[in-house]
């Protein structure tokens, strides 16, 4: 098994997603959480592109999806940082444990 197969890409994708998920769940700094979310999205992107590349029919949907996700992620980070700035302005913290108004 010297060539790269689909499984290797998927393992990478799952690893990235898992690291991102743990970051989202465990980290307390909201900025780090946002970064972790990016990590998860990119994990997904890797999976999509890999599926597209190894698909028996020559289609581009996976690539297109990945590009859309990158776009959405950029927008999401912009909005997330804006919300974060607002929260910081009002509450003077970026600690996720302090932001518990959903209770």
């Amino acid at each position, binding site marked *: 098994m010297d060539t790269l197969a689909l499984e290797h890409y998927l393992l990478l994708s799952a690893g990235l997603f898992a690291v991102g*998920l743990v970051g*989202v*769940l*465990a980290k307390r700094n909201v900025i780090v959480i946002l970064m972790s979310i990016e990590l998860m999205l990119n994990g997904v992107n890797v999976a999509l592109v890999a599926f597209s590349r190894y698909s028996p029919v020559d289609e581009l949907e996976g690539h297109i999806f990945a590009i859309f996700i990158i776009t959405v992620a950029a927008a999401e980070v912009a909005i997330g940082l804006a919300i974060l700035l607002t929260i910081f302005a009002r509450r003077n913290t970026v600690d*996720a*444990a302090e*932001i*518990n*108004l*959903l*209770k």
Partner: protein
Amino acid sequence: MPEAAVWLIIAAPLAAAVFNGLIIRPLFGPVSRIGFDATVGAIGISFMLSLWALSVVWTDQEVVLPLHEIIRVDEFSLRIGLLLDGLTAIMLVVVTSVSLLVQIYSHGYMKEDRSYVRYYTFMAMFTSAMLTLVLANNLILLFVGWELVGLCSYLLIGFWFTRPSAAAAAKKAFIITRFGDLFFLLAILGIFLLWPEDTPVTFALSDPNAPMDLLRAGGAALTGTGLTLICLGIMAGAAGKSAQFPLHTWLPDAMEGPTPVSALIHAATMVAAGVFLVARFLPLFEEAETARTIVALIGGFTVVFAASMGLVMNDIKRVLAYSTVSQLGYMFLALGLGALGPALFHLFNHAFFKALLFLGSGSVNHATGTFDMRLMGGLRRVMPWTYGVFFIGSLSLAGIPPFSGFWSKDEILGIAWSYGGTLGTILFVLAVVGAFMTAAYIFRALFMTFHGKYRGGEAQEAHGTADAHETHDERHGATPHESPWVMVIPMAILAVLAIGSWFINFPATHWFTDLLKPLGAHVEEIQIVPAAIGLVAGLLGIGIATALYRGGAVSAPSISGPLAPVTNLLTRKYYMDELYEGVIVRSVLYERLWRFLAWFDSDKGVVDRAVNTLGLFGRNLGKGIRVVENGQLQMSLTVLSIGAVIIVAAYVVWGGVG
């Protein structure tokens, strides 16, 4: 006879009750004399119509009036109507005539009462209910009347409800009779369940248009143990209403009501409803030998049991109450032996002479203000009329010829005598002993009340020389006097009936038996031997009473010593009240059952504890879950992720991927 006329027998007193209760009392005040006019007028109409009904039955034997459907559920159709036959006609005449006389008498007795109109309302209501009961051609309608008379009895026993003893007596009467009614209701249910499946249940007593009705086909349709149980249920209802052992304890207490009420309800009519009921269903009992034997034995035992307590009571009304229980026992004894004629003949005679005795005791109370015979005495000089009628009633009750009580009691004795066997012998002995005791207690009462010296009446009682608690009726007779004519005349009419009511069953004509012939009665031959034994027993009783009480001595000290345990047992009514209230109600029901139920329901028991446990479970579950719901987005996400992992894992394991 038009149907409307028969319905009017019931409707007239009912209308009087409604009129009195809803119009006279609110508009004309609680002591308006119109109440009397309405009630007496209505019952007078019922009486006339009853005589008409009697004449119709005389020629036609049985008249079944049209049945009207009032309820229909699928196959089941409840059709009510009225039935006129010999039994009904006799009861109609008894109820309306005694009721009429009692209403007239009550005008004198209740004149000063502040609830005069309420009294006449209830009395009219009772008469209407009683007439419904006897006229009903449907078991359900009969049961309605049955419960209504019980209700009226309750209302009238507790008429002076401000007195705690009256309220308690009313409650006791209602609860004990209800206890019997429960079994009656079960018997009705039993008829419903055991009725042959191919014919619908109608509960009609007699319905020529139906394939099956209760009286003609019931005995054949319902058979075996089921029929026996149904008959026993009916008997239990009858025993409650007619105060037969062991449900007799309410009747003596029911004497708390006004005396005319006792005369009408608790002597002549309602308590005879039990006898009427068993007589009505005698076709069913014919097929149930065991049930009949039990009826006869309960009756026979009650005769002696109640009469023995009558021997020692000091309250004149209680003597009469036990006497009523005992005489009703005679009727059940006869019915148990299948003798419809003698039982009803005794019911007929008893209604008159016992109502007379009660009215006499009311008259005495009117004069002296007490019912305690130890405070009476010597009244025959001041109350000659009352004395005369009471004497006639006593002779009749004691079964001395030619008074009416003799003839019917003789017939019952004759039935037991000729029935033979162990059962017949036992019943005959009980009946003779009962006859002896009857004569003794009633003449004891007569002598204590009317002979000797006057012992002070209510005034004496007020000084606390006696422990009697029976000082009723808010009447004050400083010096005893004869009662007004409005009270004497009804008593005089009843006295005439007490002498001569047997005339309708005169040995040569026996009209009475002819009336009942379609129902299975047959002419009883006069039997010299049992009649003579009964008469000797009666005379012996009178003799003993004379020996002990004629001299004016209230008690005979020479025999009271050795007999003290017996007297005590009798005075305490065989401890039956203690048994019911102390043992059954307090120890068993209250201490055990109700306490258990209270525990069962409590926090420490089952019901509340289960509820509390459930509540606590929810609360604690919430407490546990609340940790997760802390408003932290990350916690939510964690749970979400775990859930997703579980779902995927489950899919991989069980979903058969690959």
